[in-house]
């Protein structure tokens, strides 16, 4: 129905990708949102503990991971831009680069988890760490799922499954990945920086 995106003057009825992914995105944003607000209001009850524990986090690792995810998202955008011009090879390259960055996120995050694990910190240590570990682990699982989706997309690009005319599936997966990015953009200042 709305294949000709670029030249139609009016707005699209639906956002890019399969609409199902938007149901997922809205639902996930809701879940994360409640988590964020629970954190924020739990913090307001116990500012000292949160401020003290926050200093024990590795802000540099968090910031690097933000840059990594933002850049990865950007690469996915470029990959779709390439597909829109039927440049399959380029698209695949961008996509694999995005996957590479996503993997870096995983490595850095695992390093952070490991440091905390090594210090004997668990979900039951205190309220701050309960939230920190819950939210970042929940997000971490999203990154892993996102990487699986991106990998599927990268192989499909190679197989020539996406073209300038037909790449709905790619926009669907890409938007999941952007959602993962978007959530982290809020999570990073909330947990690592704001005090």
């Amino acid at each position, binding site marked *: 129905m709305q294949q000709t995106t670029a030249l139609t003057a009016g707005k699209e*009825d*639906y956002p890019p990708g*399969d*609409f*199902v*992914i938007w*149901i997922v995105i809205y639902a996930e944003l809701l879940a994360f949102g409640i988590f964020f607000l629970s954190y924020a209001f739990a913090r307001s009850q116990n500012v000292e503990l949160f401020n003290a524990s926050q200093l024990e986090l590795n802000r540099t690792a968090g910031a690097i991971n933000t840059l990594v995810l933002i850049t990865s998202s950007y690469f996915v955008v470029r990959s779709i831009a390439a597909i829109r011009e039927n440049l399959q090879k380029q698209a695949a390259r961008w996509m694999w680069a995005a996957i590479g960055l996503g993997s870096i996120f995983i490595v850095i995050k695992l390093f952070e988890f490991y440091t905390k694990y090594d210090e004997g910190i*668990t979900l039951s240590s205190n309220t701050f760490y309960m939230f920190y570990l819950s939210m970042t682990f*929940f997000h971490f*699982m999203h990154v892993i799922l996102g990487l699986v989706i991106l990998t599927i997309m990268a192989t499909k690009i190679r197989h020539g499954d996406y073209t300038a005319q037909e790449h709905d599936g790619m926009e669907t997966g890409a938007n999941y990945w952007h959602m993962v990015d978007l959530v982290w953009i809020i999570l990073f200042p909330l947990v690592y920086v704001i005090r």
Partner: protein
Amino acid sequence: MSEKFTKSMARNMFYGSAVFFFLLFLALTFDTSKALPERDNREAITTEVARGKTVWEENNCVGCHSLLGEGAYFAPELGNVYTRFGNSEEAIIAFIKSRPQDGIAGRRSMPQFNLSEEDLKAVAAFLKYASEIDAAGWPPTIEG
């Protein structure tokens, strides 16, 4: 819904979320099993307590009472009965023993189970063990 909404994507969403959230649940379960020794009073589980749990189960106590809030709501909560009875296993035993065979006219009554001395001691020990589980401050009052 227009064709912007395809069945194959809906199917992917279903399988994706099923697997994703089950794995997440397993991860949390793993952490829970690591954290439980701190809370579940497992060092108090003697053979007597274990026997008490069997007595509890084989007389279907949960068919009237609740234990840590779960069960029926016909008779009092027993998760804290040990403390409610003045930290006394004897009081629990005496109560169970003294139930009249034919009940109390017009009122709810606990059946007389004719438990052996050994079983009585065991079930009281079990209830003491249960009362010492760290249930995050529940129940709200001594009355359960």
